[in-house]
């Protein structure tokens, strides 16, 4: 059995351009409203005392973007919710949907990352498959190849954890404890961890 595949995302490098989203959408020819990957702009901040000048308050602000898709979780909530057995976790850790036995009930939308996407034309759920075609031929995922900032990588999760640490949740991503995502994030400077932010989502998709 091979190890778990997953994503590395560098929030300190992402500029929110959405090339990842567009390339992915184009590759899978997804209709309007169906996005395997999305980009969220998040911003917030507060006032804090100046470190040296007494009585002066200065703003502590952050604004950054996150690109996120299916995280091929260790404990996928979508898989639990699926009534037909159409969602499975493969030996390489990818969570995949079998369109032949999916009935399109959309119960898997209970994913906290909003990864499974209902394709109304097909009547079934669809989502990121880790670009299996590229895995087979040793190529790069559409999102990875598209990113001008080199902020997304796909590969062996254990390797990413070794290299970049184990942070998997910064705002506004959900608490990683819910589904144990196969994701490693390098936070943007000042970005709060999941559940600790007071900022707001400015734009999504």
């Amino acid at each position, binding site marked *: 059995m091979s190890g778990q595949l997953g994503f590395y995302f560098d929030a300190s490098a992402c500029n929110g351009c959405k090339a990842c989203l567009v390339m992915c959408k184009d590759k899978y020819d997804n209709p309007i409203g169906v996005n395997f990957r999305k980009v969220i702009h998040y911003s917030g901040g507060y006032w804090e005392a100046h470190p040296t000048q007494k009585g002066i308050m200065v703003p502590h602000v952050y604004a950054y973007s996150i690109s996120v898709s299916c995280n091929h979780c260790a*404990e996928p*909530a979508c898989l*639990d*919710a699926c*009534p*037909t*057995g*159409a969602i499975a976790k493969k030996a390489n850790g990818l969570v995949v949907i079998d369109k*032949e*036995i999916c*009935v399109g*009930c*959309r*119960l898997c*939308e*209970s994913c*906290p990352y*909003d990864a499974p996407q209902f394709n109304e034309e097909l009547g079934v759920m669809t989502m990121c498959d880790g670009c299996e075609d590229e895995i087979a031929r040793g190529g790069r995922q559409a999102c990875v190849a598209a990113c001008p900032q080199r902020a997304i990588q796909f590969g062996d999760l254990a390797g990413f954890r070794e290299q970049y640490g184990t942070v998997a949740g910064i705002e*506004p991503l*959900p*608490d990683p*404890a*819910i*589904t144990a995502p196969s994701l490693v994030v390098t936070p943007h400077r000042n970005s709060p961890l999941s559940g600790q932010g007071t900022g707001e*989502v400015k734009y*999504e998709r």
Partner: protein
Amino acid sequence: MSDTFIIVGGGHAGVRAIDCLRRADFDGRIELVSADPHLPDHRPPLCKKFLRGQTPLERMYLRHEPHFARHNAVLRLGTQVEAIDPEARAVQLAGGENLSYDKLLLCLGARARRLDVPGSGLQGVHYLRSYDDAAAIQAGFTAGRRLVVVGAGYIGLELAATACELGLSVTVLELAERALARVVAPVVSAFFARRHAQAGVELVCNARVREFRGAARVRSVVTADGREFPAELVVVGVGNQPETALAQAAGLACENGILVDAHCRTSDPDIYAAGDCTRHPSVHFGGKVRLESVDNALEQARVAAANMCGQPLRHAHVPWFWSDQYDIKLQIAGLSGGHDQLVVRGDPAGSGFSVWYLRRAEVLSVEAVNRPADFMQGGKWIAERRRVDPARLGDPGVALAAV
């Protein structure tokens, strides 16, 4: 000024309706009022995975918080609607606040039917509908305990399977002469009875519960023929009653469910209803039915939402259902009433087979045990009103596609 749509009930139907209203381009105000104190959750895991004690509530949310924000829906959780005033087009909340609506959607669900016998108020006697019910049951789920389940319906058997896997000693008491008698073919009942016996569950049919015995806590369950079954924990799963009191008090037509038409409209043109609380005409099969299933709740919500937005849509979909017990997945499509022939495909003594209900060779329903492909094909055939050759259908040597 834009319209306000109010949805009462945060179950499968109520939550799906929000999504469908926005998909149908409704841009007015949506408020969902639900008596449940937390974000709406999946009910099916409540008698399965949740009882194993490793599933936090967040894993069972139907949708997470950002979904409701994205859909610009206001949630009023932990809030009971006490009355509807159809004249004034307003609902009254517990505490007295009134909310006006342009259209109202009732997704009130059903409540577990109570067993009215002596001792039913004893501690340790449970019913199962909500997350809180399940949490109370889970607290008593300790290996070695004696559990008596009353009712061998879906919830009773699923719960029995989970309890048995957790090492409880389980007895199921069923009034009818077989398990799942109301809902599946005898051969499917027999299959499940065997599987439960194999796991060590004691299934007792033809057993009418007469009394729960105990001082403050339940100690045993007594049946009409005088047998006494020791119990430290009892769960009663003897069917549901549609939640109609609110609708009835508002003068809406009700008859074993809130009556709706094929557009999910009640007897009041501005009030719609969806899910377990309704009884509706079956466009495909004829007659009126009341279905208690996730699928029906989701589909009626979709139909109601479209019609509330002025997009005529009829509820003509073929209903489906599923039940998970041990390593078995039962999937059902269609309704079997009125069939004149039963065809079994595959070996019921093996691990997977399907039962087909035909009327003059037209496929009405299929019950598929560990046979997802049969279930999928069956659903399509039922919708197409496909006629099949029963002999070929029953011959496992003939591929389904070639029947």
